[in-house]
């Protein structure tokens, strides 16, 4: 990131901080005024997850900011290198913990790319359905928190209620609300239970009602618009140079969506629109996410209509466990089972990068394999790392109270930011 361009105020007299994006103000010239430094975070109600924003204030106006991350660092990448390939899947649940299915899908797709296998169509549709449900939960959480920061507490609880309807769907398929550990290499661990797709339609209808209700409560509220409009504006060019993706980039007016740009799963068979914003302020980010939820609901409904019958797991021996009948009935099956338990997967040597459209932007997995049972490298490209980096520029010149409006709308998730 080109730091020199962003550091708009001279920093000679202060100790330079080598953090990308940091803006530190120069000391004021006349001795009567002084700049106040205030530590927002790491323990602060508006810093979801944990992050520290050292903010420099002139009165209530922000003149500088240094974001400091790493408070939730758990060593995901190192931990992955010491695990078997399959053991990484539960870790990915903990990356973006409000859309865990998408993390699962992203990692599994990367490994499948290493193997070079195509998963069954039913599994692909199932991933689309569950992934879009996850995208809705992600957006619901983000918008709820964002509105709560500017005072819409009722909106917050309504959306959290709607999120709970969807978490219960996760529970029906995977057994867990958040830590779901659902996908496998070559398919999904479980198929949908009986009557699940009917249940999805019923629940989506309820969620749609809540979204419309919330829309009526805040979207055209004068106070809400005043708090969100023209706050945290970023131009298209700046957003691209920061590496913005997902709803934030689209709010700046760039119709970039990995579901369209690099169609994975069965997204090219489904019809949906990519909402874009005009100015790239907090209000646009809010509206883009709002519209994306409606699009996701429509995607799920189309996928439910089109989902074929069939297996949800490939029959390749080197990918999944053989059937129990084979394990107990044939020597080959028993050996396969034994080797799978004892040695795990052995993807061919090589490296892959697999991006998917996560709830928050481009979620990429870069994997390196040397043919042994462990990943040599498992790098995650988290979407919100870039957003936090842009935080000082977004907040510069605004008031203290705007920090929460901006920070709420960029949807920082500590789990995937610090990994």
């Amino acid at each position, binding site marked *: 990131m080109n730091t020199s361009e962003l550091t708009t105020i001279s920093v000679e007299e202060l100790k330079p901080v080598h953090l990308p994006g940091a803006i530190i103000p120069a000391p004021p010239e006349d001795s009567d005024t002084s700049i106040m430094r205030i530590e927002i975070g790491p323990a602060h109600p508006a810093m979801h997850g944990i992050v520290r924003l050292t903010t420099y204030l002139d009165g209530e106006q922000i003149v500088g900011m240094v974001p400091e991350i790493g408070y939730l660092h758990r060593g995901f990448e190192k931990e992955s290198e010491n695990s078997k390939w399959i053991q990484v899947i539960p870790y990915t649940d903990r990356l973006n913990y409000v859309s865990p299915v998408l993390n699962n899908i992203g990692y599994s797709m990367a490994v499948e790319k290493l193997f070079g296998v195509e998963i069954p169509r039913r599994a692909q549709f199932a991933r689309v359905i569950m992934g879009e449900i996850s995208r809705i939960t992600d957006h619901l959480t983000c918008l709820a928190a964002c509105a709560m920061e500017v005072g819409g*507490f009722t909106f917050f609880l309504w959306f959290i209620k709607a999120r709970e309807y969807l978490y219960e769907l996760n529970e029906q398929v995977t057994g867990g609300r958040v830590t779901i550990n659902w996908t496998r290499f070559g398919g999904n661990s479980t198929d949908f239970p009986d009557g699940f797709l009917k249940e999805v339609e019923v629940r989506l209808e309820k969620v749609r009602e809540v979204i419309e209700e919330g829309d009526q409560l805040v979207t055209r509220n004068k106070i809400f618009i005043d708090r969100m409009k023209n706050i945290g504006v970023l131009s298209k060019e700046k957003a691209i140079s920061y590496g913005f993706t997902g709803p934030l980039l689209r709010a700046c007016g760039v119709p970039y969506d990995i579901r369209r740009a690099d169609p994975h799963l069965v997204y090219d068979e489904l019809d949906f629109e990519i909402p874009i914003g005009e100015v790239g302020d907090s209000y646009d980010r809010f509206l883009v996410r709002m519209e994306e939820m409606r699009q996701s609901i429509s995607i799920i409904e189309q996928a439910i209509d089109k989902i074929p019958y069939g297996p949800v797991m490939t029959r390749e021996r080197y990918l999944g466990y053989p059937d129990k009948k084979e394990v107990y009935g044939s020597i080959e099956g028993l050996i396969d089972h034994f080797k799978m338990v004892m040695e795990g997967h052995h993807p061919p040597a090589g490296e892959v990068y697999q991006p998917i459209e996560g709830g928050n932007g481009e979620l990429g997995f870069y994997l390196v394999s040397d043919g042994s049972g462990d990943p040599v490298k498992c790098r995650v490209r988290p979407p919100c790392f870039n957003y936090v980096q842009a935080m000082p520029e977004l907040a510069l010149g605004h008031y203290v109270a705007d920090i929460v409006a901006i920070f709420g709308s960029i949807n920082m998730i500590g789990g995937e930011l610090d990994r």
Partner: protein
Amino acid sequence: MQLVLEFLALPFVQDVLKILFILLLFAMPLGTFMTLMERKWSAAVQDRIGPNRANIGSYRGRGLLHIAADALKSIFKEDLIPKGADKFLYTIAPFFSFMSAVAVFAIIPIAGPIGDFKFQVTDVQPGLLFIFAITSLGVYGAVLAGASSNSKFALFGGTRASAQMISYEVFLGLSLMGLFMVYGSTQVSAIVEGQGEHWFGLIPKWGVFTQPLGFVVFFTALIAETKRAPFDAPEGESEIVAGYFVEYSGMRWSSFMLAEYIAIVGVAALITTLFFGGYQVPWLYHWESAPQWLVTLLQFGKFASFTFIFCWFQIQIRWTVPKFRFDQTMALGWKKLLPVALLNTVVTAIIIVALA
């Protein structure tokens, strides 16, 4: 018996009894009830159940016991004074908030007078000017708490509160100018008396009908004055955590909270008194043979129910709208409310002169 009656007839004793009745049996219980009501009503708005866990044995009383539980809890909590705080100022700050919230009730009549006896602690000649003076004192609570806490967040809250409250004091006064002109007095009893009349014997001559604009400005200014949502930038729970009382704990923290809830009741009582006829029951004059005790009871019932309705209304506002940013609060005041209040004053004056 004779002695007791004579003792009760002493003005001093009567004042004390009135204070006890109005404060301890009306304002404080309603204020503490508001703490539960806010939680329960916000729960209803937000599709939740709300507090219902506090119990004595198997009795839960639909969450009513939480009032007692909260009070007990805050009494037994540690009273922390942060390092580097100004102990004296830090200690007395909550009393300013609490006192100014409670003192509002001194001039509010809760029922019509019987002969010389008034159901009002004191009917001072300056009347509402007393309210302005008292609410201004409430600023000290926030400012002292913010300045003495030795915390930057608290300091922010304190400065925001002082700027906001001093500004809204202006519109508070201006919005009542029209009311003073219509009823020809600043004395509360005279204003309430004036609202007992009817136009064509049908429409009560309430302040809200004679001064609709004044009502809107006054209500807005009062909510801002008590730092309730949507004007709660001084508390700013999302960015400056809890504003000026962020460092407080235990009973001192509770004093701030209780002061806020008593202020809700105070605002509701003031609105009722000034704009909704106070204790005046409309169309009651048709029933001339009504016994005095029933009339007084009806009057108190009307006053109390309207007060309750406005308490509820404030809670409903809080859980419906987002919050203003601090500079937006000030802009709303100086750019919108001030012209409206001035316009209201001028138009009222012109109409009064034209009619006379």
